[in-house]
């Protein structure tokens, strides 16, 4: 948790205010003043949780392109995993399939807390895998503990390849 500063407050205030404008979808003076007041209060309390180092990393158009690409990749992965999950639930496999908790290593460009939580949320969003914890060893390499319903591979590297696929590459580009 960082100390409050004006730039971190502004970095939280701008996305909050944009979200307010998108949700109300009107440019009346009354709405704008109310939105600015609410965003200012919310940003004052939450800035130190959201902003760690660079306050304006989200206001970069290149990042938005990376985010859209990442969203498309995520949706494709989620659809594939959902079909697999429907296969498990609708067959007799749900009583017999062997589950387990595997340890998988994070990629090299996954360093910050944001990137780690993005990838672990993506793993949790795909049905069949849920991230239980994130750990860091002495050399600074990060690991995920993943509960896998239909366990197929126990080797960390290969299991990581099967669970994460290309997701981690695209998530790493956002939070470089």
């Amino acid at each position, binding site marked *: 948790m960082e100390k409050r500063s004006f730039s971190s407050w502004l970095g939280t205030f701008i996305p909050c205010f944009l979200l307010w404008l998108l949700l109300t979808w009107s440019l009346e003076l009354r709405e704008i003043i109310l939105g600015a007041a609410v965003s200012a209060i919310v940003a004052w309390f939450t800035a130190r949780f959201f902003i760690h180092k660079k306050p304006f990393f989200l206001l970069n158009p290149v990042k938005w392109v990376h985010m859209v690409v990442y969203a498309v990749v995520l949706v494709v992965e989620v659809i594939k995993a*959902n079909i697999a999950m*429907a296969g498990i639930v609708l067959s007799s496999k749900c009583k017999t399939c062997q589950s387990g908790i595997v340890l998988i290593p994070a990629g090299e460009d996954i360093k910050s807390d944001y990137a780690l939580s993005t990838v672990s949320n993506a793993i949790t969003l795909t049905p069949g895998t849920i991230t239980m914890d994130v750990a860091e060893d002495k050399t600074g390499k990060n690991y995920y503990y993943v509960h896998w319903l239909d366990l197929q591979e126990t080797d960390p590297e290969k299991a990581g390849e099967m669970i994460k696929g290309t997701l981690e590459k695209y998530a790493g580009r956002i939070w470089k």
Partner: protein
Amino acid sequence: MIYAIYVFIAIGVFFSFVGTLGVMRMPDVYGKLQASTCIATMGTLSITVAGVLYAIHAGMGVSVCIKLAILLLFVWGTNPVSNHALIKAAYKMGVKPYKEFKIDSYKEEEKK
């Protein structure tokens, strides 16, 4: 256009049904949590897409589409957090799985 909306709603209802059935059929808490993810991901996604298509079809304007997209973003953002917390809490409480875990790497982490 209207048939595309029907197809998306049908897909959403099917995956919500699969998720609900999974919650009932799975033998242990871990499997139930895994199955419930289907409802929040594919069910919400297809029905939101259907809603966006309907808003375009009925000429409701951009604001409705953006509100639906933000709705999807919130559901997809909060569901993994709660699922992660629930499964970790279940493990720490010592809930036994229906079949013994084939590999349990988390046990060593607990001892540290």
